[in-house]
Structure formats: structure tokens, C-alpha cells
């Protein structure tokens, strides 16, 4: 319990530093937000009035706390580019809330696929005595990890979308309209995200199993007459899985970024695509909010993994 509280305090501190950093980065960017909103035709008085209204003339610490209060109450400012109606800019929080489900579905589905496939493959790979199988899996994983996700996505679109016609490329349907159609479409981007990570996780599990197979308790189990199958599943696996849990945590954090590219490939209206388009149109309030969101998500995932790790392996000593 003490450990969790300690971790929680560190998490809050880390999040605070992140917020300061994200705030400062966008102070350094050249360009006047008031001017960006009003356009170049605005008069100096209009710009000055808007600067005053947005609080841009306040001293920096005050602006930071105003911004932070906004963030904590769900007010992330307004987008420069997206409009709610003719005279009203879209609120960033609304913009993100609309895109979040897509990204979360993609992340969840891919994580599920990673766990379902990597663990059996890893066990088979680590447990096998066949050098041929080991070699084949090794080459296969090396190759898989070299394929960039956008190219893999294009191949999947070509093979499954255009030739096999299992889905319509670009034919994204919202989950509100047709839930199963949505899942069906999301499955292919999720496979794209998952394939290289399955290779990485399986390889990691294999190395972990091989390390464990060399330990003393394995020899003891064998000398007591246990069969290889029993040793592998009853004795080794429990220990071998411990570092894998952390590894999957890191993978989960990476998916947050990996999906940026894959969303672009499959034309999914998620967070990643919003980030990329906002960067190209220099829609800084959106970029700032998304950066804060993604970085915080990564930190929180690591926090959860740390807690889980301790729960699974009580040997982890308190520092």
C-alpha cells in the first residue's frame, strides 16, 4: 500500500513536469496565437484586444496556471482550424473526445491480438528443441521487425482489401452506425499494428524461457522425474512471464505512437491522424493538447505496469 502511494505521488510529480514542459514548448514557438485566429487582415487593435482576452499579456506563471486549470477542468482551448459553426471555433476537448474511441479501439484490439498470438508462439519457440523451427522463427521475426508499419498496412490493404475483398479500403464506418462493420474494419489496422509487436514479444518470451530453462530449479524438477512438458508449463512459464508483463506494458505505450502511422494508412479518424493534420496546418492548440494527452497516457501506462509488476512478482524489493 505504502508502495502504491509512493508511486502515485511520483506519478503526479511526473505529470506536473510534463505539463510544464508541454506548456513551455508552445511558448517558444514563433507566431502570435491571436494573429493565427484572426488572420493577417486583422487590425492591431483587434489583435491587442484578443491578446488581452486570451490572457496572453499576463506573466508566464499566471498563464501556466490558467492553462493548467483549463486542462484539469476539461477546457483545452479552441482549435485554429476546425469550426463548430460558422463563427465559432471548435473546442479542442470536443474535437479530441470525438476521435478518442477510434484510437482506443485500435489500441485495445491490437493489444488483444498481440497477447493472443505472441504467447503461444513464444512458448513454442522457447520450448522447442528443433533447431530448424528455431531458425525459421528467427528469420521470420527478423524480417517482420524490418517491415515498417505503413508498408505492412499497404500490403494488407492490397492483399485483403483489393484482392480478397474482405474489407473496403477507406470504407470506414462509425461505430455509431454499424458496430460490427466498425470492428470488422478496425481488425485490419489492428493486425498491422500487432504483427511486428507479436514478433518482438514472442522473441522476448522465447529468450526469457531459455534463460529460465538454465536455472537450478529446472534441473531439480527434471531430477525429480518431471517431463519436459510439465517443467515448461508448470515451473518455467510462471517465472518466464514476469518480465514479459513489463515488456507488454512498454509495447502498450508504443502502440500509442505506432497507431499514429497506421491510422494514416487506413484513413481512420483517430487521434493520430488528427495530430498529423494539426501539425501540418500548425493548429497549435490541438497539437499541444494531443501531446499532453499522449505523453500522459504513456506515463500512466508505465505506472500501471510498475504496480502490476510488483503484484505479480512480490520479490521486487522496496527501495
Amino acid at each position, binding site marked *: 500500500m505504502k508502495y502504491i502511494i509512493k508511486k502515485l505521488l*511520483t506519478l503526479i510529480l*511526473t505529470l506536473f513536469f510534463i505539463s510544464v514542459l508541454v506548456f513551455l514548448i508552445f511558448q517558444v514557438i514563433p507566431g502570435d496565437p491571436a494573429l493565427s485566429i484572426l488572420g493577417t487582415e486583422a487590425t492591431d487593435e483587434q489583435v491587442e484586444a484578443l491578446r488581452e482576452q486570451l490572457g496572453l499579456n499576463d506573466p508566464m506563471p499566471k498563464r501556466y496556471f490558467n492553462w493548467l486549470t483549463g486542462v484539469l477542468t476539461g477546457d483545452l482551448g479552441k482549435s485554429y482550424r476546425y469550426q463548430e459553426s460558422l463563427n465559432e471555433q471548435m473546442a479542442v476537448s470536443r474535437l479530441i473526445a470525438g476521435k478518442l474511441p477510434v484510437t482506443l479501439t485500435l489500441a485495445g484490439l491490437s493489444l488483444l491480438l498481440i497477447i493472443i498470438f505472441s504467447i503461444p508462439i513464444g512458448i513454442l519457440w522457447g520450448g522447442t528443441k528443433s533447431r530448424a523451427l528455431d531458425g525459421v522463427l528467427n528469420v521470420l521475426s527478423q524480417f517482420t521487425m524490418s517491415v515498417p508499419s505503413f508498408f505492412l498496412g499497404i500490403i494488407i490493404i492490397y492483399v485483403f482489401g*483489393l484482392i480478397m475483398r474482405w474489407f473496403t479500403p477507406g470504407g470506414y464506418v462509425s461505430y455509431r452506425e454499424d458496430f460490427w462493420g466498425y470492428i470488422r474494419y478496425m481488425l485490419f489496422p489492428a493486425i498491422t499494428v500487432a504483427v511486428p509487436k507479436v514478433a518482438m514479444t514472442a522473441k522476448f518470451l522465447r529468450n526469457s524461457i531459455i534463460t529460465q530453462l538454465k536455472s537450478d530449479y529446472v534441473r531439480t524438477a527434471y531430477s525429480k522425474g518431471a517431463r519436459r512438458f510439465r517443467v515448461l508449463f508448470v515451473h518455467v512459464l510462471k517465472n518466464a512471464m514476469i*518480465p514479459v508483463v513489463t515488456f507488454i506494458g512498454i509495447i502498450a*505505450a508504443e502502440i500509442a505512437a505506432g497507431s*499514429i502511422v497506421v491510422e494514416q494508412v487506413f484513413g481512420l479518424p483517430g487521434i493520430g491522424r488528427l495530430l498529423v493534420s494539426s501539425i*501540418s496546418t500548425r493548429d497549435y492548440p490541438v497539437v499541444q493538447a494531443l501531446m499532453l494527452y499522449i*505523453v500522459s497516457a504513456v506515463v500512466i501506462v508505465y505506472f500501471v505496469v510498475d504496480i502490476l509488476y510488483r503484484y505479480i512478482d512480490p520479490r521486487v524489493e522496496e527501495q
Partner: protein
Amino acid sequence: MKKVKSESRTKGQISDAMNKKSNKKGSKRTNAYFISGAVITIAFVVLMLVGLIHTPYDPNAMSGAEKFSSPSLSHIMGTDNFGRDIFSRVLKGISMTGLVAVSTVAIGGSIGTIVGAITGYYGGIVDEIVMRINDALNGFPSILIALIIVSIIGPGKYNVILALGILFIPSFARIVRSEYISLKERDFVKSARLMGAGDMRIIFRHIFPNVRSTLFVTITIGFNNAVLAEAGLSYLGIGIQPPDASLGNMLSDAQSYLFTAPWYAIMPGMTIVLFVLGFSLLAEGIRIKDEGEND
């Protein structure tokens, strides 16, 4: 602070498990990795140099009559939506990607090595601060950090090099630092100091040669990551900008014509795969080789 510490602990275990490959499988396979990696990499270096001086066609010459011709003897990789020769553009793309990779690894590697060497050797408060920043950055997916930097300084060739260069500093610094920490207590360093060698001399003349082989693996992996990152950013349209050909932006153009001209996507795509595969096989080969020697 403590959180970061425990994070680096779990990371350490992970890299341990990663490194613990079965060593018994002799040097035969080592050579297979190393040789195939070296062959592919050398081939790409040659293609890159060729691409800088000569391409069979002008990579930007358009030809309405030859739109989407499939691979043939005159255009071995076919032509694209403007009738441009894909092979010539792939060659240019390899040169561009190679250029970006070399520059980024040079920036990240040199600054990272110096930072790692000095912080590892001296330790103390500066080391603490630098490594905390390092750990924090290390936790984040690299494409995200690249995106953040590009969003601040804008897209384009030189900005991509700068962004990826900065991005690579922490990984080099971390690895070099840990080598220096373990090496600085060794007898040869103590005797050099007794002989009156100054700190700078010890850091660069005595310790550095011992770090080289680790550094070599890191550099190879760095190339691998640089190629992937550049291609990724260019694919997203915030890396190398047209009319400069890059493997990434070719792929993003090709995606719209996937049905009519699949080769347009496959050629640059497979080029990236081979490019990356070469470096990763090479790194794996060197690593297994080193491990074999240390056993």
C-alpha cells in the same frame, strides 16, 4: 525520482533477457547473420553512391505517354502516375534516406557519446540530471518525439535531420555512459592516472577504444532506426518534402494507385524493408560475435 529508478531497473532486466541468446549455437550462424547483413548493407551503400551521381532516367522527368507502365526492361521498376521512372526515384530515395541516416547518426552519435562519456566518467549531480532527462525521453516512442520536434521546427530535409539527430542523443549517451561507469574503475585507468594522464586523455585515449565495439552495434541499430523514422515521417508528409524523392513519400503517393499500379508501392516498400533488414542483421551478427568472444 524513485519511479524513474525502478523503470530503468525493469528496462535493464529486459535488455538482459534480450541479450541472453543461446550462445551454444556456434559461430556458423553468427557468420550467416553478419555476412548477409554486411552484403545487403554494402549493396545499399553502393546504390546510395550511384544514386548521388547517376540515375538511368531523370527522376523528375514526367512522361504522359508512359504513365503506369509495369516493370519492363526499359523501366525495371515500372513508372508512376506521372510516368516517372520508379527505379531512378528509388535510387534518389536511397541516397536521400542514406544521407539523412548518416547525418542523424553522426549528430546523435557524436553528441551522445561525448555526453555519455563525460557524465559516466565524472558522475555527480550533472550526471543525475542528464540521466533523469534521458530516462524520461527513453520511455517515449521515438516517432512521437520526432513528431513533436518537427511540429515545432517545421518539416523539410534539414529539420528532419535535426529532429532525428536530437532524438538519437539519449540512446547513445545511455549506452556510452554505462560503459564508462564500468570501465573507469578498471586497473588500466588507475595506472594511466598514476602515470599522470589528465582526465581528457583518460576519457578519450584510454577508455574510448574499449567502448568502440559496443558503440559500433549502437551505430548500426541507429542507422536502422533512422531509416525507419525518416521513411515514417516522409510517409506522413511531414518529413522530406516533394519534389525531393524519398522512399516514404513515394509510398504515400503510391497508396492511391494501389489497385492500378501495385508495383509503385511494392518497389519503394521492399527497398525500405531490405535497407532496414541489412542493418538489423548486421547488428545481430556483431552482437552474437562479441558475445562469443566474451564467453
